[in-house]
């Protein structure tokens, strides 16, 4: 989680730049605020299990982000955390199954389908590739985000632009790629838990 927050911090300006082309130029700063709150809460009241870390983090994102990425990422983390349950440690396989539940919950909440140029275009291939390795998941998320460039946005503020949204990389897919990259780096350093 700390790695994800650091990554969001580093890339906030780029996310906001991407968002200024097709959105309301707040994706980076919104996520920065949300993840700062996550880190602070995890430091003050450290949860005991990986599942609890994720549900606590998700709760903070829903409360503090202020844009659509808050409820979306908040739901992703909370549902993933709930799926992990009370287990004290988590295998890569268990994490993959839990993330699948989390991503499905995001799809249901936002009503988006693959190819709509949303974070799902990074999240879906990443969870698929997680069967191979964390590195493959991160790579799939990055490729998924890049693949949103030629797509027309069908959800969120960018959808108001219609065809003019074509040619821009989706900010939400980009931040999803950052999160999976942070997960892969953390997983390389030790066990699979964030």
């Amino acid at each position: 989680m700390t790695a994800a927050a650091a990554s969001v911090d580093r890339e906030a300006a780029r996310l906001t730049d991407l968002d200024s082309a097709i959105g309301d130029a707040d994706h980076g700063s919104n996520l920065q605020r949300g993840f700062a709150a996550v880190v602070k809460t995890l430091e003050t009241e450290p949860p005991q299990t990986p599942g609890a870390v994720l549900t606590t983090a998700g709760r903070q994102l829903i409360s503090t982000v202020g844009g659509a990425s808050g409820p979306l990422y908040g739901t992703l983390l909370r549902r993933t955390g709930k799926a992990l349950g009370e287990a004290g440690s988590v295998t890569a396989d268990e994490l993959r199954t839990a993330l699948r539940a989390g991503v499905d919950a995001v799809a249901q909440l936002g009503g988006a389908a693959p190819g709509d140029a949303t974070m799902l275009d990074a999240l879906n291939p990443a969870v698929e590739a997680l069967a191979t390795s964390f590195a493959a998941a991160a790579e799939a998320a990055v490729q998924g985000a890049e693949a949103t460039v030629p797509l027309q946005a069908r959800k969120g503020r960018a959808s108001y632009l219609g065809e003019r949204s074509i040619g821009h990389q989706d900010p939400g897919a980009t931040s999803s790629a950052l999160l999976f990259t942070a997960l892969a780096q953390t997983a390389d350093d030790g066990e699979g838990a964030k």
Partner: protein
Amino acid sequence: MSGPDTSYVGIVLVSHSGPVAESVARLATGLAGGDVKAPVAAAGGTPDGGLGTSAELIAEAAREVDRGAGVAVLVDLGSAVLTVKALLAEGDELPEGTRLVDAPFVEGAVAAVVTASTGADVDAVAAAAGEAYAYRKD
């Protein structure tokens, strides 16, 4: 369904902008006439006065208007919709009987306040607000 006659459905108006939420609340209560009995609360913008959606302000507004007969939440766009849905999915963040109403924000708010003030239950309030989608303007 539920809706004891002793209490009124509460209305929460969620906008990305504080002034928009406040103004629509004033507009709806004003147009509803002198007989506004339903409690109405605005939850617009972020706590620091910026544009956006605040889960905290929404939960606070819902608690403020909850009289036990349910709370109808009307929203404008994007993150307002998703934040209310996420809060409802949490289960314990909003008063029991809170529902997100699928309705146009301004017209729906007027219909909701008028209907709720007759003592109608939350289903009737939601239906009245949703019917506002049918008023074509061309």
